[in-house]
């Protein structure tokens, strides 16, 4: 009874242990970054010789960091929405379609992921120069959608493939229109895939640095570009401070979401 947690017996401890170790593994660098952000040494030495808040002061004194974070978030959200929508449509075609060459099309959708980003970046940059899209929000979004789309497609097709289309057909037989059936039966059925696709698309855009360096302009800077140039030139714990703030913000949001969910279920 492998899918019942309480009936696993000894295996339960093995699985729990693996989860615990992996969680620690995932947390270790994050905790390290948090600790470094309060260290008094400019260099990433642990344990730090003293503790200080000066990196946070420096961070708040520079509005460019906040601006870059907001820009990244804005672009990320737009990319997320477009990728999931286009990805969903493409996945429907790939999984449910009956045209020939589906395998080829699937491979085609993967190619932006296979080609090294620097090639895509230079190619797009050169093309956008002629279209006047460099340093613009639409250009940035298009560039990131191109590299995020394969992720959306892979995750959504994965979810669609394990979703029995007979359920959708049954809904239609019960009187729903095809689109109603899709919206109210299939979409909820693949919501894990949609959720993963959304998260991946957002995070691909959020963390993407190579394309961002090419697409950026002095007025349009994303967070990874700022981190990249700062890390190359001046390794200071200010970056640790920025990361820690974001981590803190995320933790707060997660706690808020959990509290809200609990409130709803009571």
């Amino acid at each position: 009874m492998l899918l019942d947690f309480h009936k696993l017996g000894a295996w339960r401890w093995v699985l729990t242990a693996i989860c615990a170790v992996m969680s620690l593994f995932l947390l270790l660098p994050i905790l390290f970054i948090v600790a470094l952000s309060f260290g008094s040494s400019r260099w990433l030495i642990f344990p730090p010789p003293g503790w200080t808040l000066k990196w946070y002061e420096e961070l708040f004194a520079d509005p460019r960091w906040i601006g870059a974070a907001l820009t990244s978030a804005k672009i990320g959200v737009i990319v997320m929405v477009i990728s999931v929508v286009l990805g969903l449509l493409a996945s429907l075609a790939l999984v449910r379609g009956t045209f020939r060459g589906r395998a080829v099309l699937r491979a085609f959708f993967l190619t932006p992921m296979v080609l090294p980003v620097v090639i895509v970046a230079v190619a797009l940059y050169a093309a956008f120069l002629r279209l006047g899209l460099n340093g613009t929000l639409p250009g940035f979004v298009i560039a990131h959608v191109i590299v995020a789309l394969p992720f959306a497609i892979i995750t959504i097709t994965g979810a669609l493939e394990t979703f029995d289309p007979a359920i959708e057909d049954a809904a239609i037989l019960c009187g729903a229109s095809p689109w109603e059936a899709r919206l109210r039966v299939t979409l909820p059925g693949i919501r894990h895939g949609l959720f993963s696709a959304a998260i991946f698309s957002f995070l691909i855009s959020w963390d993407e640095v190579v394309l961002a360096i090419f697409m950026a302009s002095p007025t349009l800077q994303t967070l990874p570009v700022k981190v990249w140039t700062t890390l190359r030139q001046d390794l200071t714990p200010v970056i640790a401070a920025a990361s820690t703030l974001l981590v803190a913000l995320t933790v707060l949001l997660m706690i808020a979401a959990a509290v809200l969910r609990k409130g709803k279920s009571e």
Partner: protein
Amino acid sequence: MFSAATRRGSGLGFAMPAILLLAAFFVIPVVFLLTRSVTEPQLGLQNYAALVGSTTYAKVFFNTFLVAGVVTLVTVLIAFPVAWALAIMPGRWASVVFAIILLSMWTNLLARTYAWMVLLQQTGLINRMLKAIGLIDQPLQLTNNLIGVTIGMVYIMLPFMILPLMGVIKKIDPAILQAAALCGATKWQALTRVLVPLAAPGIASGALMVFVMSLGYYVTPSLLGGTANMMLAELIAQQVQSLVNWGMGGAAAFLLLLVTLGLYAVQLRFFEPKEGR
């Protein structure tokens, strides 16, 4: 399949928006760049000849696929039990682990990689801790080699594998596993002959994603690995950005694309995805 009642066409139309976007803003610009691989510096296949004939490129090529393979394998081995556990664990614990996974994805990639660099150094925290508990006398070489690259990349790739796989496992009907138990299967038999095959589409798509991502990565490998483990993407970046030799860079990228698509075709041949039900 679309049922007979709803089928209006082959379904290709749904994919058109994505196809058009990629065609306009990906295919055309990239093709322009890649044609330079046969026109720069002169018309002809010299760039390709140089690549194929060079032992350095062969080594880098081989190393790239090796690293991608190792990272994918390690990621799958860790991600499967974790995804399985998350799919069936009691809600509260599962939420905490899930939150940790999301948190690690959300932290800036460069910050995470630098943190690993400092943690894994010979004078870093991990070596010092291992020394303190007496496991080692001399500090272990954990960065500037394949170990460092693997740790760093697995760290980044794990969430990409765990999240979709968790969703797939959640959708498996527990009744099937119950039936296996009733039929007398041991836990191990149920695992290898029922659960894993049922989760296989999720494993395959996750592994594909991680493998392909690893092929194209160069930020993390260049910071955590030595130059002896150089990945192809870094080499291409050198050509394109440092030496501004777009012909050579494009040729290397095109070869990578060909080999990867070739592997994908092989995978399709032997692990054909199910043709709908």
